[in-house]
């Protein structure tokens, strides 16, 4: 071969070697962990987890006798009554009233809770300490659950250090039942209720009930001590999963919607007999809303409307830079299961952390 082509061939070989080495260096030295193609799967609270099952069993400490009526004949040899969760038993639920329970202690230790508490403490480190100083109860340690039942609030926890002055401000306590105490405010210092101030009941230093209606307090203690039946409209023990859970009657659902969505609220009330809510916040924030009803076709149409409404809301949130709401709605979906709709919404843990990026220790570090 004459010189020029031979030289060219050698040059090309040398170039090939250099390029191959460069390729190897670039791709080997520069490489990192494999690329992730999917967002992490969010686990939705659709059934009780093992740890929630154990929690339920631990809480079942209340042995409920059969309710005694004056004219009822004494049942003969009644079986050993099942143990129940006193908190759920003591909820003064009335027909048509919603009930929502917050597992405050579990929330405190969830990812969302940690971020929230860190954010609050970053703004004011004494927030929770001041509350404890004021009322004798550490909101981060002594409160286990909080339930909202119609107009009442039920709190479970440790109230043995609750300052008497907090309760005595509502009036003198009156004993009720075997272990209950009532504080019903009376402007004249008696036991006549004052409609402007809430009444408080405390049962065994572990259950606090606050309501404008003193009868609700009495009903709660009666249920706990077996003098009144536990209402069916409440929350059964096996429904107590997630960090937030609740049951809302269809009729009550219309009150959840604002003026703009009133039509949707009316339709929901028309087809839904009961709406169950579960929220899991342990890692991701995931919510499942189950709408049950007898009208399958109505539920199916409602599902499409809700799905469309969620999609529109997401677009509006994106357009207005409401990133948190947009994040929540990104994984929203509606599943039609014949006699029930399941509406799922979630925010992955990493997105949750971005919500609190400008608050808490991350901000302090910056």
């Amino acid at each position: 071969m004459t010189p020029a082509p031979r030289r060219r061939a050698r040059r090309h070989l040398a170039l090939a070697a250099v390029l191959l080495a460069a390729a190897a260096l670039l791709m080997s030295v520069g490489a990192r962990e494999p690329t992730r193609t999917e967002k992490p799967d969010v686990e939705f609270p659709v059934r009780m987890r093992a740890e929630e099952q154990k929690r339920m069993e631990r809480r079942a400490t209340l042995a409920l006798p059969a309710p005694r009526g004056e004219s009822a004949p004494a049942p003969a040899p009644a079986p050993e009554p099942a143990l129940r969760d006193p908190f759920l038993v003591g909820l003064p639920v009335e027909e048509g009233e919603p009930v929502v329970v917050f597992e405050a202690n579990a929330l405190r230790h969830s990812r969302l809770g940690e971020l929230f508490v860190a954010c609050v403490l970053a703004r004011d480190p004494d927030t929770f300490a001041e509350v404890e100083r004021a009322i004798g109860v550490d909101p981060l340690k002594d409160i286990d659950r909080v339930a909202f039942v119609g107009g009442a609030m039920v709190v479970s926890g440790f109230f043995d250090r609750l300052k008497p002055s907090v309760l005595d401000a509502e009036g003198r306590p009156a004993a009720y039942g075997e272990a209950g105490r009532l504080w019903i405010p009376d402007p004249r210092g008696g036991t006549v209720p004052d409609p402007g101030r809430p009444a408080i009941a405390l049962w065994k230093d572990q259950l606090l009930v606050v309501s404008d209606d003193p009868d609700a307090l009495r009903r709660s203690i009666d249920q706990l001590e077996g003098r009144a039946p536990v209402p069916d409209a409440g929350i059964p023990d096996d429904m107590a999963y997630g960090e937030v859970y609740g049951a809302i009657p269809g009729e009550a659902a219309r009150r959840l919607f604002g003026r703009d969505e009133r039509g949707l609220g009316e339709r929901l009330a028309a087809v839904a007999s009961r709406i169950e809510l579960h929220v899991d916040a342990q890692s991701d924030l995931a919510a499942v809303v189950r709408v049950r009803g007898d009208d399958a076709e109505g539920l199916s149409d409602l599902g499409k409307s809700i799905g469309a409404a969620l999609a529109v809301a997401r677009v509006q949130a994106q357009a207005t830079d409401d990133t948190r709401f947009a994040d929540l709605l990104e994984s929203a979906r509606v599943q039609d299961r014949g006699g029930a709709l399941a509406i799922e919404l979630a925010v992955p843990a990493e997105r949750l952390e971005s919500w609190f990026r400008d608050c808490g220790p991350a901000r302090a570090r910056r």
Partner: protein
Amino acid sequence: MIPTLAIARDLLREARARRWTVALLAGVTLLLLLAAFGLKLEVVDGALAASRFLGRSVHGDIRAADVALRPLFEAVAYLVFYGGTLLGVVACADFAPALLAPGRIEHLLALPVRRSELVLGTFLGVELLVFAGALYGGLGLTLIVAAKTGVVGFAPALAALLGAVAFSGVYAVMVAVTMAVRSAALSAVAGAVIWVLGIVAGNRAALAPLFEPGLARTVFLLLTAPLPRLSALALHAPRLANGLPLEGRELAIQAGGTALFAAAALALALAAFERKDF
């Protein structure tokens, strides 16, 4: 540069008349028509309420249309990437051997075109052909879905582009082999081998522990080091399909590395071609 483009253009014109090309085009078009007429997507106020394919319901969830369509875009992205590159290996294996055909190569070498321009023009023409084919399929489906739902997903188009980048590494090896031995079958086999090795190389970190620590693992890592990371490159378009941001740095490294590998293989091809008599 102009002779290179002229060679590439001639290759595309030749491809137009080939049965393989026509058959592939017809196949992809048929799939697109199937999607256009067989896929029914019911969108209500931006939510995908129902989807049916050939009359059969595909899924029952109702959710935001762009989120609901992510799995579809992801699947199409994988199909465009892997299907496009593999079909390219099979359909384009004989372009380079045809360039060297007796009676043709003598004529070409006597024209005012350098040997390097012949090789690069052939390479460029085939790259454009494969890219155009992949883009046709991916973009076609994107447009069909956009027309039906208003949702535009760019993952298939990105997959076509990344597929062309990946194919550059594969085809450069096919050209180099052809310059050594003029055989369409051998060229196709070489392309298939590099295609498989590229998938292995993309997972080398996960596969390395399968080898005994020491010589075996070192040899495996050394041999796979310069190979294009095809399976890693394939992941970027599905990532876009699932609403995740592109990992620019990783993408640049993998694409750049593939381009360097392709350039190395082409340099080898040129070295072999320079020494060849016809």
